[in-house]
């Protein structure tokens, strides 16, 4: 039987264009609003076990949609519901502290991502191994290169098996060798997660792994279909 894992109903999301309090008050008084509509009338049901891709042009609302599912942007209208723990893979290393060591940052970032203490303690060695940082793990993070930070971020982020996994464009980080490894790791995560929603521009990958692909255009869902169909429609829209 198919269980619903993620369900968005009539979701609208607006961003304020105007932040001047006086103008906002005037607008409120005139019952007018200046806002930018990021998503409108999003209806979406994703079932447990599905791998769903999201494609669309830059600024079409892919990432925003993913963030609504993750609970970051509360919808202005409609509801966003999900069954189970959600983990969003985006912006690896958010909240890293330059002045703490790699090891401390691994724990910090893990807690920011919502891993609990027991999980972090038991997975810490595994995370450090995977990041391939060697003795750098006990050096302050300011001595790290961008790639090293990304590797540490990925190692932490990929240490858990969430019920719902959301991936925003992070598929591989680091140098050529680590890229392969990280890609493999993320695909391993995808395989183990209950439900996966993935935003990506690599259509080849989406065609390979996705059950369905959502095409987003100007804040609306244009189409939800088989990967090939959605990609075909994407190129038609592109013109």
């Amino acid at each position, binding site marked *: *039987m*198919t*269980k*619903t894992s993620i*369900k968005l109903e009539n979701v609208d999301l*607006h*961003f*304020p264009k105007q*932040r*001047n*309090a006086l103008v906002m008050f005037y607008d409120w008084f005139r019952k007018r609003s200046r806002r930018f509509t990021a998503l409108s009338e999003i209806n979406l049901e994703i*079932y447990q*076990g*599905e*791998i769903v891709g999201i494609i669309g042009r830059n600024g079409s609302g892919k990432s925003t949609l993913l*963030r*609504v*599912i*993750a*609970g*970051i*942007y*509360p919808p202005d209208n409609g*509801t*966003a*519901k*999900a*069954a*189970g723990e*959600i983990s*969003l893979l*985006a*912006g690896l290393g*958010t*909240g890293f*502290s*330059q*002045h*703490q060591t790699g090891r*401390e940052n691994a*724990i*910090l970032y893990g*807690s*920011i*991502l*919502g891993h*609990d*203490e027991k999980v*972090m303690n038991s997975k810490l060695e595994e995370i450090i191994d995977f990041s391939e940082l060697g003795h750098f793990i006990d050096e302050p993070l300011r001595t790290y290169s961008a790639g090293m930070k990304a590797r540490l971020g990925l190692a932490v982020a990929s240490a858990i098996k969430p019920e719902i996994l959301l991936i925003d464009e992070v598929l591989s980080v680091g140098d050529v060798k680590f890229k392969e490894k990280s890609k493999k790791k993320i*695909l391993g995560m*995808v*395989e183990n997660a209950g439900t996966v929603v993935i935003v990506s521009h690599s259509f080849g*990958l989406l065609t*390979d*792994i996705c*059950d*369905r692909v959502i095409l987003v255009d100007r804040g609306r869902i244009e189409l939800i279909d088989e990967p090939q169909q959605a990609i075909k429609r994407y190129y038609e829209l592109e013109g």
Partner: protein
Amino acid sequence: MPLLTGKYRLEAILRRSNDKGTMRPANMTELEHSEPPLQDVAKRASSLFAPFWMFKEVFNHRFLVRNLIRRDVRGRYRNAMLGYAWALIEPALFALVYWFLFIMLSGNPDEMYAVWVLIGVVVWGCFGKSLSATTNSLVGNARTMHLVYFPRVIFPITAVGANFVVTLMSSLVIIPILMVYDLPITMHLFWVPVGIFLAGIMALGFGMMVAPLNCVQRDVGHFMRFVVRAGFFVSPVMWTAEMAAQRGAWGEAALYNPVVLPITMVRHALEGKSVDLPPEVILSSLIITCVLLVTGAMVFARLERGAVKYL
């Protein structure tokens, strides 16, 4: 990437053919009832229960709170030769300047005055720094707010928590004072952390009201800087509750500033007594603190939803 295709593909195809081809079986509805319920993706408190919800969330996320506080405290004393010692040195230097200023302005203070100023600087520091930190807690974490979800109330809580920890370190300055001035070591010293905690709670309540507003209009942050600076003078940092009580009606009115209670509490703890203020002053201060905390939590719960969109 053929490793993933098979399993999921098959399931999806089966499901799709099911959906299209056959009617929904009658017992489908029964099965759906046994499913784990769909929940809102971000649990947010109704304003009414916000204060309780806040404590619950902090408890649930205590690992995160602890790590964020550690990040804050570590970051503050980075690359400093004297490191954490600055938590002691900074208030001591300030106290020295205020003491000097006081002697210039009004001559001979009593011999304990320098100590009272130092205590004032430390406890006020907890309030003032916590208030500025909470006000900027959402704006300063804009990037995190856009990329990760956890209850937003964690941000002001950790801002205050970090300052509470730093102030506790500063309050170690009490130990040499006790020795130099030969003050009694009593059970009343227990009031020292209580006073500091109280100051932090006041700042938290106040700060939670303004933090989301600061996201919309940074004017709020500028104004709060003024509030902290001005609050310094109307709070008993350079003066004490005893001095104020001798200054007639205005002085007595000044005692109703809620910050009088924590600062005086710590000072009296050093003297070896529990806080010795008129009961109506203590009561009003405690009531103001509770009201600040409850309304702060409620206002925050109401406003934080929209705040992220302005960042």
